[in-house]
């Protein structure tokens, strides 16, 4: 197993996030043989490494996006009569620093991924479809 592309960025993440990102990439790597078989593509080391990298990117994106969307969806769901969400001493509101910070984080991650050609299907399609795209040189 090689996580060379994952290790390249995971070591820059805070420990708590690194554990989650690498752990998820490993779980996809363990299932890689089945994914290749389902996609009817022959496995090779490079494709496998790219697959685990996409898995790690998905996890990082999911962490950042879920943090933002939890707040955004909560606000939408709760309606305009709710001025913010209080959790302990923190109040999350659209004008608040935490909300803006997380929103900016997600926006920059989306821009980084888009700039590198990581498009919607690679982030959200099935892993079988990812392997098909990568092996056909479309990804």
């Amino acid at each position, binding site marked *: 197993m090689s996580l060379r*592309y*994952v290790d*390249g*960025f995971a070591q*820059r*993440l*805070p420990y*708590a*996030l690194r554990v*989650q990102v690498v*752990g*998820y990439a490993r*779980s996809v790597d363990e299932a890689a043989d089945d994914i290749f078989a389902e996609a009817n593509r022959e496995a090779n080391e*490079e494709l496998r490494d*790219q697959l685990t*990298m996409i898995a790690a*990117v998905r996890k990082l994106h*999911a*962490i*950042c*996006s*879920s*943090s933002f*969307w*939890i707040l955004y969806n*909560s606000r*939408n*769901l*709760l309606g*305009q*009569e*709710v*001025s*913010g*969400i*209080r*959790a*302990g001493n*923190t*109040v*999350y509101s*659209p004008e608040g620093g*935490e909300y803006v*910070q*997380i929103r*900016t*984080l*997600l*926006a*920059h*991650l*989306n821009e*980084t991924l*888009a700039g*590198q*050609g*990581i498009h919607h299907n*690679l982030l*959200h399609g*099935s892993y079988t479809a990812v392997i098909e795209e990568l092996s056909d040189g479309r990804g």
Partner: protein
Amino acid sequence: MDAAKVSAAIAQFATQHHTTLTFVANRQTQLLEIGANVAVVQHYRAHGYGTSILNPKGSTEFTVKLSTRGHPAAYSRVLCKRGSVSCEIHSNLSVEGGRDLGVYCLDVAIVAADIVPTAKGKGKAPPVPNKYLISFAEAKKLVIYPMLLAHFIGIVHEVTPQYMRKFRRSVVPDDHLHPTLITLGHFSGNSKTILKSFERRRYKVWIAESFDLRLFYARQNKGLSPFLPLDELRAKAQEPDEDADNWPITQLELDELDDAIARA
């Protein structure tokens, strides 16, 4: 795609945003509990329930209870109503066990409407009698491993034993949420084998792994409960929902979304 370049670009992103990523890492549990509450609300909405937010008296903030301490009247609740069926969603609510008078604090509790006091009395609020507890969800920032599943099933046995017996061969009425374990992690080791065994034993429980991915998929189609099987949720999220927000790529699009909300 040049994988080495992608890796380098994300490494640069991680360095540039290290402070915010650390903030996110430190607040994941807090955000997870907020998300768990919202996801349960979304489950009921997806099943045709109307929902109303009831905040503490005099407050316009949706106040989430994050610990065992505090009177429930000081925190928000959500009333769900569909025809003659109603229930309330509470965060970190103390309830009595289903087999004895042991008291358990549930991350998200679904209870009968109008049972939890809305004003503080003298002393601590009493735990909700078990007969009023409908279901619950527990949220953990963990990978799903066998002992976590055993721990969760233990809680179900103690607080909602009907999901092990009474509903064993029938459908849970009124589309109520099954007792649910929400985690940010994926299945590890042989935990999927255990889950299959739960299904064979007809336990009416849900294990919502990779909750961050679930929320992302569910928000793309507002008619979806985040507690569908993950593959089904991913597939259904691809079906366009005219009411859903588009996937924002840039800061500009995010700004436009916020402006649209403000105008509404």
